[in-house]
């Protein structure tokens, strides 16, 4: 039996004081048996709330999703779920909106990840150097991350309006061709990536900067003695040593990028047409907007598998080099 938790002692002693006067043999007996039960099963009793919570909030929804994906159901009571076997998965293969959403998800994740990692690491390295106003710039660079996501995306949407927006105004002033930004199929996803990069590069900066500052000094000293110069130090020492930190930051960003939702929902709602609709938005639409609950269950399974595979692959990368 495990250690008897302190909390139960407290409970016991107070009970003892309360019932001291009227204590009969029977009371003593029941009190002892309760105490014995609690002592024997303390590990079960103490973890029960957490287990119940997990079962209700996590296991049941996942289990229900795995069950309902074999049905056609629109959430009604009069028309109950109708079993269609693998029908939802067959539809999924034929569904052009699904393949488009898959493509958009991969597009946003890969381009966004590369951009944010390169920019974030670069800026973190710059900020590690000492120059005047370094602290002020550091503080300012963190601001985008602090802003409310939906509000940010809405402001960007305004800036990206082709005729009224400030971005095209500047492009025009600089003598460059103007863009349709969120209003054209080809530029909608890049515009989303731009907003996301503006907002989330600071996260990578913060993580990488913390990593740089915790690096040991010795390798640098010996490198200098051996006569290594700037670029060599960066590529041979700093970056390899930072690898686990950068990969951690990348895992965080990858998961977020795969499930990008708020930026798209407030800036383009997946439009024009479906050109910026990723899996997350599509699943939201099918499940909560069209009430095709079974089909969205099937989509969720695919979505879940993608996240699982990607994070597993990335975390293996992290494990290869350890210090």
């Amino acid at each position, binding site marked *: 039996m495990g250690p008897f938790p302190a909390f139960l002692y407290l409970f016991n002693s107070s009970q003892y004081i309360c019932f001291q006067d009227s204590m009969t043999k029977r009371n003593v007996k029941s009190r002892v048996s309760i105490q014995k039960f609690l002592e024997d099963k303390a590990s079960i009793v103490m973890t029960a709330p957490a287990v119940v919570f997990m079962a209700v909030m996590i296991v049941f929804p996942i289990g229900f999703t795995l069950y309902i994906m074999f049905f056609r159901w629109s959430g*009604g009571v009069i028309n109950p779920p109708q079993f269609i076997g693998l029908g939802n998965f067959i539809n999924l293969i034929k569904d052009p909106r699904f393949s488009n959403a898959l493509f958009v998800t991969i597009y946003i994740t890969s381009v966004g990840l590369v951009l944010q990692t390169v920019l974030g690491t670069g800026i973190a390295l710059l900020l590690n150097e000492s120059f005047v106003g370094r602290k002020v710039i550091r503080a300012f660079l963190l601001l985008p991350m602090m802003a409310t996501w939906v509000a940010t995306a809405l402001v960007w949407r305004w800036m990206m309006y*082709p005729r009224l927006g400030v971005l095209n105004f500047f492009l025009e002033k600089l003598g460059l061709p103007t863009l349709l930004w*969120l*209003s*054209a199929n080809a530029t909608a996803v890049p515009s989303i990536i731009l907003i996301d990069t503006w907002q989330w590069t600071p996260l990578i900066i913060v993580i990488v900067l913390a990593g740089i500052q915790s690096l040991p000094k010795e390798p640098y000293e010996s490198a200098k003695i051996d006569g290594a110069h700037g670029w060599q130090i960066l590529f041979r020492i700093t970056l390899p040593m930072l690898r686990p930190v950068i990969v951690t930051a990348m895992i965080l960003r990858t998961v977020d990028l795969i499930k990008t939702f708020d930026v798209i929902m407030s800036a383009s709602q997946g*439009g*024009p*047409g*479906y050109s910026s609709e990723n899996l997350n938005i599509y699943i939201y639409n099918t499940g909560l907007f*069209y009430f095709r609950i079974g089909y969205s269950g099937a989509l969720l399974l695919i979505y879940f598998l993608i996240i699982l595979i990607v994070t597993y692959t990335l975390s293996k990368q992290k494990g290869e080099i350890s210090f």
Partner: protein
Amino acid sequence: MKKTMYLVIVLLFFAGLLFAGGQKAGEAEAAAITEFGWRNYEGTTIRVLANRHPWTNAVEPLISEFTELTGIKVNLEVYPEDQFRSKRAVELISGVAEIDVTMLMPMQGGPRWISEKWAVPIDKFLDNPLVTSPDYDRDDFLGAALDSEMSTTYEPKGEAYLLGIPITVENQALMYRKDVFEKYNLSVPKTVEEMYETAKFVNENVPDMVGIVMRGKRAAATSQWSSMLYTYGGSWLDDNGCPAIDTPEALGAFNMWGKLARDGSVGQELVAYHWYETTTDFSQGRAAMHWGPCNFNAIYENPESSKVVGKVGYARIPQGPKGDSIPYIGTWGLSIPYLSKSHEAAWYFIQWATSKDMVKRLMLEHMILGGRKSAWQDPQLEKYLPKDLIESSIASLEVAKPFNPPVIQISEVRDIVGSVIVTAIQGGDVEAAAKEANRLFAEAIGKGDECR
């Protein structure tokens, strides 16, 4: 301890009051009724579920007059639109609560209400002189307003009955800039082709102004495009209930929307246009015409937000190739859900709220555009609304059709059809997109095999 006792006693007292009220209502209904009288259902209490809408705001302070007239107490519950819809859905599905009267937008909720049999047919009250006031006058309602409440307007087709009685209407007009039309010697377009030529002319010749603005954003555009579809002689479904958005008529409507966008409007940018963008452009004087609901006249005639006050003309939408001019209509109505236990008292409330006097009062004092001819034809209305708006509205409201596809899966179908509109605006292959959309439409409404 004593305090708790008091609390329990007080609570019991109030519970007793509640039950007493319920019993009284029952007694009133049991009494035999031999002729119509406003106080026949005195003592009943009804629960009314409403959306936070200008109509609700205007009616709320007047409810005491209803209670005074009938002796029926009204518990009004008002929620913002999204919460209102979900609250209503939850109560109807669970079937536990009692709602006596609720607001319902038939073109949005109708198909679901019909298939789940949620509505108490209003006809049985209208046809019964014992519960309907002799001066109610059903024929005074504008044709399209009452049609939009008919069950046969929507799928699934079955028995014909009224889902509710309309309280507000949203109708459509072609709004145009009188000053610009005069300056460039343009005439108000009579056909859609003329409208296109006029829009193109403005785009090419008037500086800083586009010819026409309308919605272009995927699902949002479908409601405004629906009148183009009707005007071209098309419809959402054919006679067999199969999707008909790849017919020559529908293709004509899609192509016209695309042509208008590219040659007579803001171009591809239109794919981001919702009502906010269109009204901003038009009220700031950047567009010569607006294809949309004429209720926006409240924005255009407001000197604080508009640069075009007094310069806007209102006309019926132009005719399509076959000579039809069929605008869309949006209606809010009052319905009695099956959950109600006081049908007659609920009907009294609806009857009072949609009586000739009331509709006229709401229209003249609060600018709530109602569904009755007599109110629209009241000479005093010209003090508040432009004459051309009133005239075009009365004509439109006789023939208009609901703006949504008449099926349960409205959201999904709107997205499917909206993507064809986007393709048309972008100058893509409209025919292929419409064919594909028609297939998806059929699948979405569960007729994938039937309608191949």
